[in-house]
């Protein structure tokens, strides 16, 4: 049993996911995207391919979402002039709930992954 880089990544991901759970609810999108991107890179470095694969769809979604954001010249994601439209609001809320579920599941997955790595190494 050794505290490997992979275990460190999982531990970090575990902590950060806890933060993400809140961000997903509060729609702090930029920190959320950055954190998610950050630990995806960490998993890449740690060669945790399975975990990386699990996260890739969300990463891709984030990239797509950011590229197609309505605001053009500043970092924001939501357009203040349309965000209050019921359909956009509903979409954002649904998105938030889905991400929340995903982060919750991945929280336990990272917990499991960390212990597994700790035990197996």
């Amino acid at each position: 049993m050794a505290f490997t880089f992979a275990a460190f990544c999982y531990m970090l991901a575990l902590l950060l996911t806890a933060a993400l759970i809140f961000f997903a609810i509060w729609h702090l999108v930029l920190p959320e995207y950055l954190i998610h991107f950050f630990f995806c890179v960490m998993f890449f470095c740690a060669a945790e391919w399975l975990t990386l694969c699990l996260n890739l769809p969300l990463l891709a979604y984030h990239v797509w979402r950011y590229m197609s954001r309505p605001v053009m010249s500043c970092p924001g994601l939501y357009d203040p002039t349309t965000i209050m439209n019921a359909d956009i609001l509903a979409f954002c809320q649904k998105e938030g709930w889905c991400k929340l579920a995903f982060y919750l599941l991945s929280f336990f997955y990272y917990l499991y992954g960390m212990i597994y790595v700790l035990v197996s190494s």
Partner: protein
Amino acid sequence: MYPPTGCYGAPPQQQSYPTIPAHSTPAPHKAPITNSAHSANYYQSNHQQQQHHHQLPQHHVAPSQYSAPSSSVPPSQPHPTLHSSVPPPSNAQYNQQQHPPYATPGSYYGQQSYHSQQQQQQQQPNLVPAPAGGPGAPLYPIVSYPSAPGSSQYGTLSSSQSTSAPGVPPTQMGAPLHQYSTSRPAPTTAVQPGYSVAPTSQLGPTVNGQGSTVHQHYDQSHQASLSYDSYGRVTHSSGGADADRPPSGTPSTSVHSSPGHHQGVQYGYVANSGASSASATTSGPAAAPLSSSSEDDDDDEEEDEEAGGDTSSSSTGSASPVPNSYDSLEGGNYPDSMPPSNDMTNQAAPYGSYGYPSMEPAYQQGPASHTDSSPSHDLYSQSSYQQYSQPFPNLSQLSAALGGLSGVPELEVEALRPVNLLQERNLLPPRPLEAPEPNLSPDLKKVNCSPHTFRCTLTSIPQTQALLNKARLPLGLLLHPFRDLQQLPVITSNTIVRCRSCRTYINPFVTFLDQRRWKCNLCYRVNDVPDEFMYNPVTRSYGEPHKRPEVQNSTVEFIASSDYMLRPPQPAAYLFVLDVSHNAVEAGYLKYFCELLLDNLDKLPGDTRTRVGFLTFDNTIHFYNLQEGLSQPQMLVVSDIDDVFIPSHDSLMVNLKESKELVKDLLTSLPAMFSQSRETHSALGPALQAAFKLMSPTGGRVTVFQTQLPTLGAGALQSREDPNQRSSTKGVQHLGPATDFYKKLALDCSGQQIGVDLFLLSSQYADLASLSCISKYSAGSIFYYPSFHYIHNPAQLEKFQRDLERYFTRKIGFEAVMRIRCTKGLSIHTFHGNFFVRSTDLLSLANVNPDSAFAVQMSIEDSLADSSLACFQAALLYTSSKGKRRIRVHTLCLPVVNQLSDVYAGADVQAVTCLLANMAIDRSISSSLSDARDALVNAVVDLVSAYKSNVSNLQQSGLVVPAAMRLFPVYILSLLKQKALRTGTSTRLDERVFAMCEFKTQPLQQLMRMVHPDLYRLDNMSDQGALHLNDTVVPQPHLLHLSAERLSRDGAFLMDCGYVFYLWIGKCCSEVFIRDVLGCPNYASIPPNMSHIPELETPLSERVRAFLDWLQDNRAFSSMIHIVKDDASAKATFFQHLVEDRSESASSYYEFLQHIQQQMSK
């Protein structure tokens, strides 16, 4: 990412903000000094009555003559009845003929019945499918003769001062009443007299079930409370009918009738309950003082509130009995030979006009008896159905004639009559379509909000979202909240009564459980009635909360206290940002701008604090120091456009009053100053940034004049339009902004309460799609004059001048927010218009102007089953140009239904079209134009298939739609042929984008005239059905379908497109018409660009001009007229509006219908 909620989150509610000391101003003159805290000042005025109200004065005249013998009746009784928008034929008849006494009810009825026969016969072809047409005539006796009950009531009633509108079509009412009283025995008989003779409001008590003991008492209070509604008319009548009374001396006369001087003025009408003469005079001044609604003369419109009642009253009140010739239409006349035209509308009119059992629902329930809430709903629904059958007698026959439908309310029968579009060709009503009336009880209908202000696509709200989906119609509201009103109660009260949980303002549709409690009609919470509200300043009596003006009017304005302020109310501040580049000098607008502003400098809305500033730009920005004391304006040039700074902070925006000479100086010298400019670049972005910085401390209005594509500094744009793609049938690119610089700046402006209005006078592409964002999100307005040139394009120049004049003088509200609340279960989906949405139901409007409208899409989240009524309330909180914080509240009440057929019966085809247009514009920007067009076509397909599968049980082939929606396909086809949405026809991108902006902001009526113009034939106008206003006769020609087959070479046709009239003269048009109206000897000598109708003294010319003036009368912007000759090249502009015809790129109406049919069978 912008925070969605700005710095002030929830404006209308109390927000504690430091400051406010300056506020307390509202009171001085108007606070009722004497009577402690009970201070609801309540004024009304009645300017600028529109054609739709023209029946009102008549009521007046007729009754006063009629009731002369019975004395003691204040002529003020006739109730405005805003919803009945067309003069009832009977009244009209009276006035015109001016029989002094209507000697006997009998004769009166005789005439009346004659009318209805006429109508009946003539309208048959229109109303009923062929088979039913025949029996129409034999049937009418049923309608008209049951007058017996009516007349007997008359007899009895005369004792109870039957005054107001005896002209009320008793026949039409009598019949159904009769039927109805037999069918519904006990409870309703009591009601019957009240309604049937409704003209006399005094009958209220009977309606009320209070019995005759209270009669007198109610009479009095009633009159009093009613009188304020009809001020305008009161004053008119006082001028006209009672000629002996000096019309203008009123202020002083009014005083003696009530104790205190102020009291007298403010509550003058209180005293009038008994004496008719006094009432007229007293109410006159009372009407005047606030008259914040008398917008057409803006100068006195608000100073009255400052100046106190007496002075201004003489001007707005009875002094000018006829402020505007058409306003006060004294005698609308429908002579015997009533054209078929008025069938629907006239039938509807009695509803509103037959009097006013003006009991509130709450009132009906009786003061203390109903503590439980449930009965109220029963009462509503019952009464609504009871009343339902009354005013449409002939329709009831129709239903009988149709057979098997007698159980269905007649209105719905007509609205639901299946119309096979492929067979019926004459779909247009003879007169422009009016908003359908919601199926409510008459007393609710009477207080309901005017359809010009507040309109819903479905006047019967479906109970569930499922039902709404089934109907395939959009649910939404069309709002024109800051519209120029001809009558508006203004209330100053220490406490503004609102629901404690949802913050709804108290309104006519709340329920009074007892004297001390009221139930909110939006969230159903039971609230306490505050002590102050118990006192009714109108009657100066205690314990009548249901008679307060707030509860008697669905449109009211409150003077808000400091709770409603985030900072002391800002002064009116206007900054003009003028393009002075070479291009602008070429176009030559500057001279006209300066001239017009000089002329209107004193008419700019504002008070002594009004501030103005000027800023010009080409490739640099020029500020003007207008500080008081300077001998001439100083120009300060800032050439660093990358980092704009304000050279001097306190002298650029100056007090207009103090620096007026300098401002005039500047305006006189400005055009010459840049006449030699050779600078072709335009630094619009930096100039806007400078304007933003300059205005940030106060907020206000920035008016930008731009003549070309901005090319320098921030916000520079490139040309994106490819002229070869203008007529492409594929998608249209670049409908969205190229940069979000303007949008972000607009949001910053909105945050600082700066509204930016854009005048684009460009002959080249100027990327309006990007530039318009500056106005869109700061609640500004956009004006566009393509190919503007002061010599080469006189038409645009004239339009520019007219628009500018209106623009300078129209009312304005600053730092406004508008919140829309609706009954629990409904929710707001999307807003359309120019604003920034601050939260799901709150719009932030830096400026609000009377010419812009809003649309709201709604959705039904929870079933509305527990209520029979749905209500919508729009509250607009703004700072007036006089620095008063005011809240204008509109409340609309609609019935909830659970049958699909009822939903269709209540559909408002114009509102549906406008809402769909708004949605289509959104779609074309977010997705693509072809998507939006498909969606519009699908809307028709969906409606027809939904109707076919769900409602229509007739096994007809073809396209069947309910009669209420029979114009829907025409309107959609017209939409598809509009500049905004058309494809295949060469359309410049800027014009297309501008048309889209117009769709989003124009009020419904204006928009409908643009989409589907009204076409009339003018050369053979007869006096049939003509309106008689004062001393002019306004002929009422019939609407024609927009198709070339309706034109004939020997005629002259007028097309009313909203902003412009086209008068098309056929080649063989009679020389008499050309000579008498146009002043030209023959067709050949008509000049090609004629754009006015000469004022000739011939009867034909007078009638044509009377008709044009009448059409023009209720529009904010004056329309131009173009004379189009048949052979001129200009005729293309005329013919492109004939939407039912095939054009090079779009199908004809018939082809469109066939296309729909194909789509359905897929």
